[in-house]
């Protein structure tokens, strides 16, 4: 039998890029189907309206909403379309996906993250599971990401440092703002380890991409230099250059068609003109980001898959994860410091902060409870978007502020000090009340049922989130910050999502096998963050990239090795 392509990859972000790249380099024909347009460096500008206030890089919420179910105070559930709430669960819909817009704060998982159940036991109300692979299995691919995507950083030793196969990062750290050294000082005084945070950003030109221009608007904005390690800039451009990879933008995959044996026979999509198209491939790889991947499977029933593809055990969409926990901020008022230091702090926030602490990656604090999984605290610049920052000042103590009092507040916010933010990541627990199903009535513009997302959370997330955020806040205070706040939130950060099709050795409790192939479908792989049974206490993208490289090598092997 002849196929249109050896491999069809659905979704071109961090999960899809490594597969397209690896397979094309091995000489196999690859088709990438991406629902969004194909934009490149020359299309990207720093426009807060375009990126962040009118959201032109994500699907239109009127035409393609999600429905979100939230817990009410009474313990029931209430649902709302994101078109009504404006709460956007799309993160970037164009070639390269959300990886175009990420900040590139990069962390590996640690050996303990692969066996949380074994190390810490079960947690009531959560479904914590060990991974079917170990850190050692993934380490070579973390290493590969450093080289292929381009990860910059500087190694220091600290109690929770994960083992590495190579001495140091292939690229030295990106340029840093003077504020970083004050974080180092404060951490030193507090006996904490101030870790230079690795970034998926090139400090200088390499890998046929330009180095970072430190333009000030990085996270949420696509990169005009190519320095940011998006799937597009780092992988897809090179995949296309091999001659074996074709990218079809504006191709919305609507259904995956399977036969009597349960195998996939074709992929159905709508092209730019709204025409229905079919394509087939020996192997199909889905990487639409966790929520849309689950939705596509659920929208694809077949003779052997009555409940949706690979869903005979009703596990697709379950145990959705988000990377979040706590946050906080503080302001270093210029007036409080010597003129020289104030002048340093006032410097343009183009260069980065690049600092994390992981001293509480495991919390062994009797005042807090039994020894348990903690997390990571990142120090970052306040997001620079000026309209968003000004708009946040509108809310006063009683009612709206306007007129001169509002102007005074805005002026003080921008001119009297530099803000430093903390983002704390706990291990977001997998629970029965965080999952994706299909909405029974709401459809998108193609008439396809939209994803209905229940976003419950485990109270442990809040406890650990508070704990970590408070530790971060102590560092801010030590630095001389004022107006220090820290808090935890149960609401999920919509841009950091994983889970929904966990991998495991037992087909009764997992959707994918250890190689991320569907237990029930021999020619289906899933390579975005969906496979993760637990998320580690960090943002996921380095792990998504690494795992996708690992799975890609498996696929090459299954197809018969390098051509």
């Amino acid at each position, binding site marked *: 039998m002849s196929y249109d392509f050896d491999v069809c990859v659905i979704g071109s972000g961090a999960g899809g890029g490594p597969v397209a790249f690896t397979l094309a380099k091995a000489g196999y024909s690859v088709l990438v189907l991406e629902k969004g347009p194909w934009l490149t460096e020359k299309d990207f500008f720093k*426009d807060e309206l375009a990126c962040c206030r*009118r959201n032109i890089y994500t699907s239109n919420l009127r035409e393609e909403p999600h429905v979100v179910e939230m817990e009410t105070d009474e313990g029931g559930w209430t649902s709302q379309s994101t078109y009504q709430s404006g709460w956007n669960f799309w993160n970037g819909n164009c070639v390269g996906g959300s990886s175009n817009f990420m900040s590139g704060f990069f962390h590996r998982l640690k050996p303990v993250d692969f066996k949380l159940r074994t190390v810490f036991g079960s947690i009531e109300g959560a479904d914590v599971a060990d991974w079917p692979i170990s850190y050692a299995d993934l380490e070579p691919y973390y290493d590969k990401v450093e080289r292929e995507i381009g990860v910059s950083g500087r190694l220091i030793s600290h109690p929770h440092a994960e083992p590495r196969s190579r001495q140091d990062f292939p690229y030295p750290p990106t340029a840093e703002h003077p504020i970083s050294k004050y974080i180092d000082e404060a951490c030193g005084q507090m006996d904490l380890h101030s870790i230079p945070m690795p970034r998926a950003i090139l400090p200088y030109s390499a890998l046929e991409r330009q180095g970072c221009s430190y333009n000030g608007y990085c996270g949420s904005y696509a990169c005009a230099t190519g320095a940011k390690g998006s799937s597009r800039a780092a992988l897809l451009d090179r995949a296309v250059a091999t001659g074996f990879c074709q990218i079809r933008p504006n191709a919305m995959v609507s259904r995956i068609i399977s036969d009597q044996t349960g195998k996939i026979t074709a992929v159905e999509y709508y092209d730019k003109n709204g025409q229905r198209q079919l394509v087939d491939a020996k192997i199909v790889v889905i990487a639409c980001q966790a929520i849309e991947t689950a939705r596509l499977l659920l929208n694809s029933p077949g003779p052997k898959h009555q409940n949706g593809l690979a869903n005979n055990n009703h596990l697709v969409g379950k145990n959705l994860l988000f990377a979040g926990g706590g946050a906080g901020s503080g302001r270093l008022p210029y007036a409080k410091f010597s003129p020289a230091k104030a002048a340093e702090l006032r410097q*343009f926030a*183009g260069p980065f902060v690049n600092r994390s602490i992981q001293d509480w990656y495991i919390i062994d604090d009797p005042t807090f409870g039994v020894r348990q999984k903690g997390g990571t605290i990142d120090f970052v610049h306040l997001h620079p978007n000026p309209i968003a920052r*000004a708009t946040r000042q509108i809310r006063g103590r009683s009612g709206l502020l306007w*007129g001169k009092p509002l102007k005074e507040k805005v002026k003080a916010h921008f001119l009297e000090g530099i803000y430093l933010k903390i983002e704390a990541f706990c291990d977001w627990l997998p629970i029965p009340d965080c999952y994706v199903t299909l909405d029974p009535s709401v459809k998108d513009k193609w008439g396809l049922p939209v994803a209905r997302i229940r976003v419950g959370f485990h109270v442990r997330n809040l406890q650990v989130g508070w704990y970590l955020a408070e530790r971060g806040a102590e560092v801010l205070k030590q630095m001389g910050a004022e107006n220090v706040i820290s808090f935890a939130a149960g609401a999920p950060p919509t841009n950091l999502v994983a889970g929904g099709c966990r991998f495991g050795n037992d087909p009764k409790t997992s959707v994918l096998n250890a190689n991320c192939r569907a237990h029930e479908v021999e020619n289906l792989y899933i390579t975005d963050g969906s496979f993760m049974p637990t998320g580690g206490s960090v943002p996921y993208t380095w792990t998504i990239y690494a795992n996708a490289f690992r799975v890609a090598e498996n696929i090459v092997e299954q197809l018969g090795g390098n051509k």
Partner: protein
Amino acid sequence: MNRRSFLIQTGSTITATSTLFSLNIDAATLSNLQTIQGAWLSQQQWQTLAVVQEHLFPSESDAPGAKEIQATHYLNVMLTHPKSDATERDLIKNGIVQIDKIAQDSYSKYFTLLSTEQREAVLRHLETEKSGKQWIRLLLEYIFEALLSDPIYGGNPNGIGWKWLAHQPGFPAPPKNKRYYLL
């Protein structure tokens, strides 16, 4: 060059005053607005809107206000560009109607003719209703957009808002042909 900048550069803008309304935007701006947007607001409604914006974001000797950042012009651009939608125009318009109604009910005068204290009272009154509060918030958000968005959108002339707040925008800046509603 558009008509407005032509008029400004040739010094032919005139500030019209009339006995009926205290005009807060100049007549040239007004006629320009009305030709662009096909008069979705009446002349008097434009004046009310401009006065509300100036009340919410007043000019100061050392800081730009709604006038300097061209908040009225900016709002019109946002509500009349090719991808704008009529429901938002209606929303803005309804708020203006509300404002004038409260002004009439309380003081038997147009909003534009009220004292600063009276204007404040009318807006605080409007704020007590949920929809009124949303309307004021929307206007404030558009004001901040006019203050801090890229000048290609019609506000923040010469980066006046960025300068006031010592904000250095990211680069590369968007060119005019990449305004989001043209993409």
